């Protein structure tokens, strides 16, 4: 009996031993990481190495513009130079990753500048410090000294692309309406600048009111609305030649709110006759137009999808201004906005994934984004008056107009990341409104 009991206990113990063995870890330890952090990625950008003494100022300036571009995106944080343990004295020397790891630099940008006559040559490399390897290959850019800022923007775009996996937006421009003077006598004229507010140049004088400039898909032309004739009419302006012409075919009709189709030859706009506004398209080469909507309501602010197959616009056909999507050839429109308040000025993202819009609700204006079917609406800003969003070339950043309250209130340009982070003003010499972001320059 004693042996039987022992056998029984042995069996039980065997079962107990086998049970955890069956649950034991099989193979490597497996864990799943679902929570992380969202914070700017720290990088180091030592002053670029000047191959010649004459290039030293350009070397320093180019490195500063690159760092400003990356920091300004809100995705990166520059480690101050005082924290550096070692510097870079030879562009072609191997990097001592340990020194950069010690200051938590996760990316390192190294560059060298050569000046020969009026031509600048910039070489640069980007390093993944913790991986101990170079990010892509070293590149070289060349141009005249006048274009040193564009060279810097190009370098920043490349580094941005290598670190994020998506295209940059630094080598781009913005056309906008520059505003000067008091609110009751405001002078408006078209202006163009680099995306960061540098190199402001004016395209029109301030004799006539101008509104809503829109870049062409190639960035060489601008559509805008002018009151030169006394009522609004659409003009197209060649940015390089600063030559403009009226696009309206009906001198008696008011045309406004134009925007290019992705093909660059068709535009969509609003035309108002008898107090009713509808949408039209026009071939800017032939001048032939086509009516897209025919409703007693106001249809305006059209914007093409990136593939040109659809148009999003605002309409008050339901009683209040809401957003609708229809085929670019016209037809039935589908309402996509259903939240409280009024929606307007929709703009399709260059990526095609979101539509940015202006929303007015409870006495506040917002810039928001939603999916193209109206889902996932998200308000990014809130102020006395925010309006007129425009997308960066990579669809990551939105620029818009913010106007402050009161008699001394002034319109300014602001930008915000599509996530709602990194809300900040854009430097302009004067008041500014109605921004339109160009595509990346060639």
């Amino acid at each position, binding site marked *: 009996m004693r042996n039987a009991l022992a056998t029984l*206990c042995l069996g039980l*113990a065997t079962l107990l031993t086998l049970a955890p063995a069956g649950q034991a870890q099989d193979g490597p330890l497996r864990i799943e990481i679902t929570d992380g*952090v*969202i914070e700017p990625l720290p990088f180091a950008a030592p002053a670029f190495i000047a191959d010649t003494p004459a290039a030293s100022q350009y070397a320093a300036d180019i490195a500063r513009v690159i760092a400003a571009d990356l920091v300004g995106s809100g995705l990166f944080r520059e480690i101050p130079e005082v924290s550096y343990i070692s510097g870079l004295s030879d562009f072609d020397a191997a990097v001592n990753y340990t020194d950069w790891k010690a200051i938590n630099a996760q990316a390192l940008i190294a560059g060298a500048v050569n000046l020969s006559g009026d031509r600048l040559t910039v070489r640069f490399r980007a390093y993944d410090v913790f991986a101990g390897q*170079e990010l892509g290959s070293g590149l070289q850019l060349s141009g005249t000294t006048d274009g040193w800022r564009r060279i810097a923007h190009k370098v920043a775009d490349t580094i941005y692309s290598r670190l994020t996996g998506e295209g940059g937006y630094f080598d781009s421009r913005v056309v906008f309406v520059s505003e000067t003077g008091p609110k009751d006598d405001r002078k408006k004229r078209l202006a163009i600048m680099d995306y960061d507010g540098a190199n402001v140049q004016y395209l029109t004088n301030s004799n006539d009111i101008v509104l809503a400039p829109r870049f062409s898909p190639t960035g060489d032309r601008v559509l805008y609305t002018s009151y030169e004739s006394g009522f609004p009419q659409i003009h197209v302006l060649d940015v390089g030649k600063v030559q403009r012409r009226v696009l309206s075919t009906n001198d008696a009709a008011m045309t406004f709110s134009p925007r290019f189709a992705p093909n660059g030859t068709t535009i969509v706009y609003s035309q108002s006759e008898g107090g009713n506004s509808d949408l039209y398209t026009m071939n800017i080469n032939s001048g032939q137009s086509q009516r897209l909507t025919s409703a007693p309501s106001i249809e305006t602010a059209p914007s093409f999808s990136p593939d040109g197959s659809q148009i999003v616009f605002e309409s008050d056909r339901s009683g209040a201004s809401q957003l609708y999507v229809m085929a670019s050839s016209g037809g039935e429109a589908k309402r996509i906005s259903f939240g409280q308040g009024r929606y307007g000025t929709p703009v399709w993202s260059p990526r095609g994934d979101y539509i940015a819009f202006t929303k007015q609700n409870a006495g506040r204006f917002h810039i928001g984004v939603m999916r193209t079917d109206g889902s996932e609406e998200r308000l990014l800003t809130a102020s006395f008056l925010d309006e007129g969003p425009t997308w960066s070339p990579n669809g990551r950043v939105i620029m818009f107009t913010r106007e402050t309250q009161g008699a001394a209130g002034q319109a300014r340009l602001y930008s915000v990341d599509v996530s709602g982070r990194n809300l900040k*003003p854009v430097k302009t010499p004067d008041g500014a409104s109605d921004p339109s972001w160009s595509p990346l320059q060639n």
Partner: protein
Amino acid sequence: MQTGTKISVAGHAFLVTWALVGGWFESDPLPFQSQEVSIISAEEFERLSAVRAAPEVAEIPVAPQVPTLAENTPRVPNRPDPVPAPAPAEPIAPPAEAEVAPEPPAPEVIPEVPATVPDAPDVPELITELPRVAEPETAQPTDRVAPEPVQPPEPDVRVDDIAQDEVAPDQGAEANQPVQEETAPEAASDRIVTEAEAEQAEPTAPLITSRPKPRPTRPVVQEAETPAPPETEAPAPQSAQVDEKPAPAPEPKPEVESSAVEDALQEALTGAGEVEAPEPSGPPMTEGERDALRLAVSQCWNVGSLSSEAMRTTVVVGLSLSRQGVPDAGSIRMLSSSGGSQGAATQAYETARRAIMRCGAKGFELPTDKYAQWRDIEMTFNPERMRIK
């Protein structure tokens, strides 16, 4: 057979049957939580406290095996001088109008920057003075989003990943005492708060500072004091890996008089007999230990600079750790990916690799007696929850 014997036999038969097959009808165990505790003596506590308070000795950086540039850093190809762009005829000729230089001979070189900036436009005036820039009406709550919200540190506290209290030397002490600066983590919110949300919602920062737990002291493995494995007739394992592992300590013999039952239990539990013993890898990793590792990597997994597509990409990364918990850089590799293109997967993998290398630089806190359990790890980085933050 007597009735008592019959009852006894039937009872034992039922017991044996239940023991063998009863597990098939077991219901799922009720959820429970366990908390591991360990008891240490006052002397050990003093010793641990003293170690924690002492300043960390910075590791002497190992001189990196810096590869020669020719091996690891491709040379920048020389480019021919571009054809100078013609001067623009009009007052405003933006850079876009400039002639694009020919493609470089090397495939990886991007098209040369035209960079021929046009002359200044013929405009009535060119205002170059920059106006005073207004600050945003509502500041963003924090620049950092983390799993756990963190209140902003005091102004005079240095921001650091590791929180530590200030240690000042005692007044009048004869011996030089180490001074430790107070540090605290950077302020963080648990989600992205837009300006519109910040106007409506209550502050999301916690009312009480959530300070990280002090780093536990890793138990020191003293190879020399490791007891020798018990002698056995079976041949010693030949694997070099097995040789590295400390032999399991022999079970202490019970003081009570052994019996047949106890011998049987002891024999079964020590793995002798017919049951094949598992690899001597210590007890399984507890959920708490897994969570600690998960949290350690999470704190360095920065997805803030990832593209939208990469944020939809899940990557599985394999790696090996040393006994000190330091990742072997050469072992880190992407095992698989899903949800995005190859480019997005590469970006997601590089971000995961940075997280592993950065937070594992000083070694992850893992139980050394379970080294075989965590020597090889597969980490799945799934950013799905981060997309909605």
